């Protein structure tokens, strides 16, 4: 199994810095996701790892081998392209067998062994029986599976997936992401996965790296980046949050006290850094609120507001709560019956309120 390490990788297209000093390391057998909005440089980073692009600066290592300038056909990575890149002139079988046939001499494979391995790969992605079809005769989901089988069959050092699910419908997407996760764990291939869908990223990954405008902002396990974003962009991009600006007043033990003019109150929360600037922001996820009991302690973040809007979402209820000069997004359990106009007191637990420097990058 292979570790992948990028060090200060920088790629410039004309005036666009597509990758800006990207550094990260992917453990062997890990599923690592690059997540970010469109145009942030995910594909570029992936293409540098595959060897299609050579970075202007920085190095790429597989284990301890420097592969920065190694030709793509020598890297033994397997990439699944966003558009699957299935060859329309080959059958499913020939598509999948291609990588093995190319390396047949090198690997010392017979046609029979190739057949076996193709069969294995097609079974893995549940496509047995479609060997003789041509890509044009397949549905989108099936095409996606062929692309996956074609990548897996060569038993690559690193599997690279560029938005593999973006062309599928919502339901299939959920199905396939489970399958990819299961397969990846079963085979233990080091995998780098690119997506702009934060839900997909969180559900599938061991670790997530969030990128914006060519920069890598933060990386870590889904839970960590979700609950401890170190940056407003990350907080905003992952899940939903209430972001409110304020002034850092001082410490109350381990909690930072922040004056939020819009709420017209002081809020306590956990800070991501010990030396907070004066201008800070707080991030409050809508699901962390709970209803306030009769006598809340004065040190709790209690907010009193009027329900403005109620949306029943099935698994939960989303409301807009007008507190002072602003509206908060709040999720409530679907067993409640909130109504517009109703007064509500809620608590944002201190441990779940994040205090950040008010910067977006």
């Amino acid at each position, binding site marked *: 199994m292979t570790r992948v390490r990028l060090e200060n990788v920088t790629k410039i297209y004309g005036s666009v810095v597509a990758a800006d000093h990207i550094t990260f390391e992917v453990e062997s057998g890990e599923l690592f996701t690059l997540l970010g909005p469109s145009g942030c440089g995910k*594909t570029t980073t992936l293409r540098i790892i*595959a*060897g*299609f692009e050579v970075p202007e600066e920085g190095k790429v290592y597989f284990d301890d081998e420097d592969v920065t300038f190694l*030709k*793509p*056909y*020598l*890297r*033994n*990575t*397997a*990439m699944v*392209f*966003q*558009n*699957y*890149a*299935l*060859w*329309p*002139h080959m*059958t499913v*079988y020939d598509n999948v067998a*291609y*990588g093995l046939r*190319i*390396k047949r001499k090198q690997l010392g494979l017979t046609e029979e062994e190739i057949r076996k391995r193709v069969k294995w790969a097609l079974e893995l992605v549940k496509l*047995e*029986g479609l*060997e*003789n079809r*041509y*890509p*044009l*005769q397949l549905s989108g989901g099936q*095409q996606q599976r062929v692309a996956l089988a*074609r990548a897996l069959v*060569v038993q690559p050092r690193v599997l690279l997936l560029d*938005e593999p699910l*973006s*062309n599928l419908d919502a339901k299939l997407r959920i199905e396939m992401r489970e399958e990819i996760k299961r397969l990846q764990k079963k085979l233990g291939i080091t995998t780098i996965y690119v997506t702009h869908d934060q839900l997909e990223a969180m559900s599938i990954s061991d670790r997530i790296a969030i990128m914006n405008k060519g920069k890598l902002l933060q990386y870590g396990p889904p839970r960590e980046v979700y609950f401890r974003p170190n940056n407003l962009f990350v907080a905003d991009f992952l899940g939903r949050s209430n972001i409110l600006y304020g002034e850092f007043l001082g410490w109350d033990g381990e909690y930072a006290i922040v004056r939020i003019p819009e709420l017209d109150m002081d809020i306590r929360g956990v800070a991501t850094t010990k030396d907070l600037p004066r201008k800070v922001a707080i991030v409050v996820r809508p699901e962390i609120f709970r209803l306030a009991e009769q006598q809340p302690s004065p040190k709790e973040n209690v907010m009193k507001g009027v329900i403005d809007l109620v949306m029943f979402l099935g698994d939960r209820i989303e409301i807009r709560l007008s507190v002072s000069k602003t509206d908060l997004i709040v999720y409530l359990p679907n067993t409640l019956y909130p109504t517009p106009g109703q007064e509500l007191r809620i608590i944002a637990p201190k441990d779940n309120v994040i205090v950040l420097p008010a910067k977006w990058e």
Partner: protein
Amino acid sequence: MTHEQTTVKFRDIYIAGFVTALLYILLMDYIDPVTEALLWVIGIVWAFILFKRGIDYRKIMYSFSLSFLTIISFIYVFFILVLRLTGYPRAVALFFLPLLTLAVLGHIKEKILTYRETRKGIKVKVSLYKRVKTTLYKLDPIMWVFIVVGFAILIVFLIIPVLLMLYHAFEVPPGQPIWYNFWRIFNTRGYVKTTLYPTDRFYIIEQTATGRIIYIIKGINFGILLNSLINAAVVTITATFLGILVAFVLARYNFPGRTVFRILAMIPLFITPFVNAYVIKILFSENGPISIITETLFGWGIRIDSLAGVALAQIMAFYPIVYLNAYSSFINIDPSMEEQAENLGSKGAKLFFTVTLPLALPGIVAGSILVFIFSLEDLGAPIVFQESRLMSYQIYSSFTSETGIVSPEMAALGFVMLFLATMGFLAIRSYVGMRSYAMISRGGRWTLREHRLGWKGKLFVYLVMLPLIIFTAMPQIGVVLLAFNIMPPSGFAINLDKATPQYFLELFQNPDIFVYIRNTLTYALIAVGLATIIAIMIAYSVSRTKMRILTPTMDTLATIPLAIPGLVIALGYFYFYSTFFRGTPLDPTMGPTAFQAWIVLIIAYSIRKLPFVVRSVYAGFQQVHEALEEAALNLGASRSRVIFGVVLPFILTYILSGAIVGFIYISTEVSTSITIGGLRPDQAPMTFAMMMAYKGTTTYGVQIAAAMGVLLILFQLIAVMIITLVFKQRYAFIGV
């Protein structure tokens, strides 16, 4: 259908072919008709058994190379049978037999399946009456006019003349069977000659009076029909190979001077009738530059003549057609297709042959088939090399016969040529059509794949490709040199001191010569006007109606003139006007003073070059979304208001581009100009005068013809500039 169930492998079909062919080869020397028939039956039955046992015949349809091979082998087997060739060529045909049988069976089965599907699909039965009624209801008067007039013109001026030619092809001497003319073409030694004599040598060595040794390469005569076929095949294959090579290097590699290469590679596309062949003849004559080089290097000269000369001239003139098609195919391949292969370990030649070439093939063969057709019908090279043993020359010379009557045998020959050209064209068109949706591409970025060349590549590019490209541009360069008298009309020399604009000026000053230029300009202008009007009607009807058989038929009819050899049009028009306009000034048999060739020529031009105009106008109509028109109609504007007031002005640049391209192809037209035009020399256009000059039957010299060639190049340059710089569109050189 699962993989386990198909016990029959696809390769079994090749085994069947191989065994049948082998049997034939073993029995070749003793075979009698009955045994041979048996072999054919074996091949067919074998394929049928494999079909019944579930061989994957769909492969033929979906595999790029297989479907192509099948089409080619169809044509091959057809000719082997018609020409009754025996020996190894026939063994090859037997090899293909099972594959072809399978293709046919598969095709039939698929047809039945889809028919059943559609039957099942149509839940609601709508009577024919109602269908016709709703269709008619949707058509307003102006659409009616467009469709009816468009069809009428195509039928009267395209279908009927061709049918008339066919009718005359069956005119036989009394007492002969109805297929006599065709029988003669396929059985007379003059047409098909399969035995070789000691005198049939590809080249001969000659010693001149001064003791020089000259290799004269002539090619071998297999009879008129086979000569044409072999010539066309050789030209097509070589041009395809060259075109792919040049296109691939220019499309995929970056090296200093690439832009210059690209421009140079376009030069042969400038049409200079007759001159190109003439310059090649000079280049490869015993006094030409090539001979000078070989003389100093090896001590002998070289001359390329006759059939070989024709082939060479055509290769040089036509390879850019493949080059252009191949180039855009390579450029249009989704880069991820190749990157994926590279990612899986493929590179170099393997990558090229497994991924790049198969994906580009449809575009490439679309160019190749045009080369095939152009080679078949080309008159320039055969006339300059005085090679009469080709179909095109034969048909042409029947127009110049004393009697003024074109013989039925020539009509039959014309039909054979038409058959070859249109069958090839339609086969390739459906092949390309089947494949064109093959590029599945959603999302993904489009970075062109370009590589730097290594030193080996650079050596190849500068030492092999550059000379090749310059070489193929020679004719166009040569015509300029000739026109300005830098190069003498015979022999070879470069005399910069003798340069003079005299011949160029003479074009405009000498009234006897200027008349040809005036003729060409007037005819081309009028013909282009006509063609544009017809094109608008047809393109509009095709793009705005979706009638079941009618719309596609109209589409095909408007494209097919591309595949109809000009000589066939000439023959057809000869019969058409001498039949329906007998005794009027439009009757070609009226003689060189009464016959009004100009009218016939103008009509012939506008029909022949219609596809170029239609294509551009059609592209324009596709730019205007139908919904826009419907919105205007909805607001109460009439259809004619919408078309003439909204749509046409909007797509004016497309119409003008189409008209300009049409103008170019009309002013350089050869086949009808020198046949129909030749019947009334004083009304003939420039190309006729150019031919006469090269034949040496005029008072003025070759330089005048060359000056005309330069004038034509000038037209084309201006056209390219207007279209690309002013209208910002692609100059549609040639394509299916």
